[in-house]
């Protein structure tokens, strides 16, 4: 599936819930399906700055697609990174670079998008895109 299709799918899933509590519970649930980063990659270098909790992200190129794995010591943060990775993993670096992230707003996480929020959602998106840029350069 293309990034946009996956994002639409996520938006539809979240639309089933009436209130924030159900949305958060679903997000926590999604966190449990996050493709976990291998312990060896849980290094200081792989920690995303700007989060109150720790978030590690690792990226690897499999053929022409970028595959992300991650983890966090906070459950909600784990849910957020799981949503992002579901949308961006297994995609071509150029598609990741060009993808927009409006779907975050649509699933009711808009308040998490402010750059001053301590959860670092903005930093996470930036880090995923930076990986994509780095690997795109490699592909060129």
């Amino acid at each position, binding site marked *: 599936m293309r990034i946009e299709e996956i994002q639409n799918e996520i938006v539809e899933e979240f639309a089933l819930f009436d209130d*924030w*509590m159900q949305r*958060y*519970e679903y997000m*926590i649930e999604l966190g449990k399906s996050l493709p976990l980063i291998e312990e060896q990659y849980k290094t200081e270098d792989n920690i995303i700055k700007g989060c*109150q*909790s*720790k978030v590690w992200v690792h990226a690897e190129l499999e053929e022409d697609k970028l595959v992300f794995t991650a983890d966090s*010591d*906070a*459950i*909600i*943060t784990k849910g957020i990174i799981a949503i992002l990775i579901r949308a961006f993993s297994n995609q071509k670096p150029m598609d990741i670079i060009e993808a927009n992230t409006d779907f975050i707003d649509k699933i009711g996480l808009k308040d998490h998008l402010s750059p001053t929020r*301590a*959860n670092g959602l903005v930093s996470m998106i930036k880090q995923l895109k930076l990986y994509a840029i780095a690997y795109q350069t490699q592909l060129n």
Partner: protein
Amino acid sequence: MITTKLDIDTIRKDFPILHRKVNGYPLVYLDNAATSQTPKQVIDSIVDYYSRYNANIHRGVHTLSQEATDAYENARIKVQKHINAAEPCEIIFTSGTTESINLVANGFKSFLEKGDEILVSAMEHHSNIVPWQMLCEQTGAILKVIPMDQEGDLLMEEYIKLLSNSTKLVVCNHVSNALGTINPIEQIIGLAHEVGAAVLIDGAQAAPHIKIDVQKLNVDFYTISAHKICGPTGVGVLYGKEEWLTKLPPYQGGGEMIAEVTFEKTTYADLPHKFEAGTPNICGGIAFGAALDYMNSLGYEAIASYEKELLEYATKELTSIKGLKIYGTSEHKTSVISFNVEGIHPYDIGTILDKLGIEVRTGHHCAQPVMDYFKVPGTVRASFSFYNTKNEVDILVEGIKKAIQMLS
């Protein structure tokens, strides 16, 4: 003296913000150690200043400037009386505790030599660690740490052992922002003076809860932030004994702080203006005065007695939650409770509580060494003020239970 009981319902009417909703729930504001809310009496003083007599102070010959100058200098006298300083000139208006500490640290550059020692407590806010580290880097002085125990009490025997003729300065908070511990500063000051060391006490967390008497404490420097005592942000005070402030070189150069300027030489103004370069936060100073009037109209004894009741109730109720651990269990505490729930990240709890309209702080509270000591990434901190209620404690407890249910 009979302590009058506070009428909390009436008091809450003074605070417009307490009546708003957050995420659809009535606001439960429990982040008072970060900043306190502002009563309408203080808000009115700000509106009044900008509506009636906004003008630059000192030097002006016109009426508005005179009125603003009088109000600002009157605020200085209010602070002086509030902390029982001997002279108004011992009250330096700053932007807050952080600037107050930096002002002293900067001034001590000329007093320290290589090998001199500064003692700092293990439970300091970063703002009372970093300026001293910078000072040590610049002078070759050595920073030594007064350790604490698991309850969050300073180890006084260790402190006594650290004191020597090399000790030039002892810096310590009156109340810990991360743990709520009220430190035995009278004893700390007395012991430091025995070896000839000066003492700076960071009073940011004490001023909202404890009536301070700088002369009785015999403290050399004491710092306060207005925004933690129902005042506005961006203004605070450095109290310094006149003899110390006279010795200390100016902090920043500029207008207001000079007596005479030529390109060959500048002479400095007398205290307190020597340390108040540039146009100060005039409105902030005046509003700070209004905040002190408000606090004193309630009375510190009544505030302390009610907050003690709240602290005891909240401690009892929170302790009843399975897996909840409180950090900072000193017998001498202000109404601050730092805690974690086993297996749950403080950030997760804080996020869910916010969704329920309950505002707490999560993280390291700018006191990373304290977090390192307890081997936690951070804590959830609920800090109570005199306008909080037992009902709000109950809402917090229910909120935590809800968060545990969602996050486990």
